[in-house]
Each structure stands twice: as structure tokens, then as C-alpha cells.
């Protein structure tokens, strides 16, 4: 677990640093995705299984969505060179490393090692439904509201947006 922690930490730091120095937003998003995945694996290694799984799923969904935005990233990118294999090598290797770590962590008894306490999914669920019920509901309401607001914002207005996009 200790090794998993340090490798994931190094990958997270390196890929976040890569976001700073990358020119294209598409490439930067890829680095950011790698950083988020690495930190989710890290959370998994440090005995937060349920939360880490939720984070993994959410980040993956968000990244897929970000790449699928109708015209956004295609226009932002304006570059075709990012399909060149060379630019995929380093992120590819690091992603493979993270994947191996994830499989390893999933196989090993969760939270054995590293920091001490493991919080079970049941305990977290009880906390979310019991003392923190209002917090959880408010957070989810916030998420739904934000999604609705986002949908309204990206909707095309016929008169104003004619001819672009």
C-alpha cells in the first residue's frame, strides 16, 4: 500500500504540474483526468473505498462529457496534432500505471496498511442518511440545480446565436 500511495502521489503531482505547462486545453484536460484518477486511487489506497469509487465514477463521467460537448472542445482545440502517437506515450504509460495500481488496490484487502482507520461503506451510508441527511440532500440539490443552469446556459438561442457554432 505504501508503494501504491507514493506512486499515485507522484503521478498526481506530475500530471497536475503538466496541466500548468501544457499549451492545448485538450491535452491539459487529459492530464487533469490523469491527476484526478491518480488521486482517487490514492484515496482508495488510504482506506476510503466508497468515496473513492464515487469519485472515480464521477470524474470519468465528467471527462467523457467534457470530450463529448458538442462543439466546445473541438473549437477550443483547433489542433489535430494531438492524435500523433508521440503525445500519447507519456500519459498512456502513466495511465497504465494507475490502472495497474487500481487493480492491485482492488485486489488487496482495502485499507490494510497505510493510514490506520478504514471507514466502511455502511458507516458512510449511515452517516449520509442519518446525521448528515440535510447536507447530502442539499449537495445533491445543488448538483441538480447546477446541471439545469448549465443546460440553460448552453442552449442555443435562435435569434442571438444564429450562424455560429
Amino acid at each position: 500500500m505504501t508503494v501504491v500511495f507514493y506512486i499515485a502521489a507522484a503521478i498526481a503531482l506530475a500530471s497536475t504540474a503538466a496541466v500548468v505547462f501544457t499549451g492545448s486545453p485538450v491535452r491539459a484536460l487529459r492530464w487533469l483526468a490523469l491527476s484526478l484518477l491518480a488521486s482517487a486511487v490514492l484515496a482508495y489506497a488510504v482506506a476510503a473505498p466508497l468515496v473513492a469509487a464515487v469519485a472515480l465514477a464521477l470524474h470519468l463521467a465528467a471527462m467523457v462529457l467534457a470530450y463529448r460537448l458538442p462543439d466546445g472542445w473541438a473549437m477550443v482545440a483547433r489542433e489535430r496534432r494531438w492524435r500523433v502517437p508521440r503525445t500519447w506515450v507519456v500519459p498512456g504509460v502513466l495511465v497504465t500505471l494507475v490502472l495497474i495500481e487500481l487493480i492491485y488496490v482492488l485486489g488487496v484487502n482495502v485499507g490494510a496498511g497505510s493510514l490506520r482507520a478504514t471507514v466502511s461503506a455502511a458507516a458512510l451510508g449511515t452517516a449520509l442518511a442519518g446525521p448528515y441527511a440535510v447536507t447530502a440532500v442539499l449537495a445533491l440539490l445543488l448538483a441538480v440545480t447546477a446541471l439545469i443552469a448549465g443546460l440553460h446556459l448552453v442552449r442555443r438561442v435562435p435569434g442571438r446565436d444564429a450562424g455560429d457554432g
Partner: protein
Amino acid sequence: MAEVPLVHGLLLTTGLFALGLLIVLVRRNIAFLLMGLVAMFNAAGLALVLGTARWGGADGQVLFFVTLIVAVALAAVGAALALRMLRQRGSLDAAALVGRRR
């Protein structure tokens, strides 16, 4: 197996947060600002998880859950605003919003 000291975890989260802040400060592209904000949220959540792992209890993980959802809300609204800006102004330059040219 030897344990990971909490200090190392906190150093890592500090580093991640600093890098996110650096992204926000250095880049002018709104897409990068969003990514920096998400990175900062992620670092803060990681600190919460580390605290949970050190002292037990589900409270920190509940907070991480909330952090995660707030980050998602931020990313959704931010991306939508960025897309709207891209459509109306044709650029994602944050400085252009306040009237500075190049």
C-alpha cells in the same frame, strides 16, 4: 507494511492545491481556470480523506462527498459559461472579459 506518515499526505495535498492555484494564476484561458479550480477542490477533498484515514469516523468522507458534488456543480456551470462565452465572443481569453487586449 510501513505506514504512510500523515505529513507526507498533507504535503501532497498542499502541493496539489498549490499547483491548482498556479494554474488559476498563470493561465488566462477559462478552460484552464476551471481545471485549476477542480484540481484545488480535489486537493482539499484528498486532505479530508487523509484526515478520515488517520482519525477514523465517517465525517471527513461526508465532507469529501460534499466537496465532490460542489466541484461537479462548479464544473457544470463553469463549462456551460465557457461554452456560452466561446459562442458569443469566439475566444476563451479571461482577460478579454475585462477589456484588456493581449
